[in-house]
């Protein structure tokens, strides 16, 4: 789980990385993450991604939203939710305690998860070989770590 600091100090966006063990699990997690006491206040964007996506890496989250989310099917809106007097998008200001949330399911479609397009990943053996050669290839510093590799 990650709350990106750029989203109003981590206030407005919650990203959850999960495995999908059964039908309906991702929407279940989204709903809970949107409404647990620690997550319900103000948060506008609740995003579920699969376990191969690093929730703290906004680039990977955008990739998942682009390749695993069909907006017409995978976004639900909660309305009249717990918000804050600080929200500048609610006007007149009297509206501000009442917000809304988008629950974005950016996981592979569970109904067709076996048929879902396979993603590309770096093979673990290739990663280890490249990481061992990293300095020799002319790069400074430690080789970057990858969140998921192909086994």
């Amino acid at each position, binding site marked *: 789980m990650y709350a990106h600091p750029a989203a109003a100090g981590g206030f407005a966006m919650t990203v959850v990385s999960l495995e999908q063990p059964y039908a309906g699990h991702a929407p279940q997690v989204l709903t809970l993450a949107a409404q647990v006491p620690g997550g319900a206040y103000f948060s506008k964007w609740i995003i579920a991604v699969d376990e191969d996506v690093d929730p703290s890496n906004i680039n990977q989250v955008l990739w998942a939203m682009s390749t695993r989310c069909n907006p017409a099917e995978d976004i639900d809106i909660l309305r009249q939710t717990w918000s804050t007097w600080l929200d500048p998008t609610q006007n007149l200001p009297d509206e501000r305690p009442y917000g809304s949330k988008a629950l974005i399911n950016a996981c592979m479609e569970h109904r067709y998860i076996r048929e879902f397009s396979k993603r590309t990943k*770096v*093979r673990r053996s*290739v*990663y280890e*070989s*490249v*990481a061992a*050669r*990293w300095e*020799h*290839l*002319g*790069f400074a510093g430690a*080789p*970057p770590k*990858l969140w998921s590799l192909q086994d």
Partner: protein
Amino acid sequence: MAERRLVSADSHVSLGPSVPAGASRTAAASGHEAPRDLRDWIHRAEAIGQLRRITEPVSRNEEMGAITYLAHQEIRAPALLFATTATTRSGTTSTGSACRGARACTRTPPPRVASP
């Protein structure tokens, strides 16, 4: 040669149909002409520190992709130019022949050497 009009000198300026009459300059004179070929683009990328040459032999079978993917975990990582491709495990030969490279860069290919 017809004058090419400069639409936008900066990438963050929106590309609009109207350029003020006084702002009309030739693109070449402004230094913002689009690169005419890959070599030109490589030179320009290198001039702004956005090109890294990899001289170690690298397999184009997965290894080259893995290196690029790893290097680009960093935002604004430079483009990578691989000078040498190693022979891949499947036995195919290097893609980096002088002949094909020259074709890609619009130069006259070197004379063909008869195979032994």
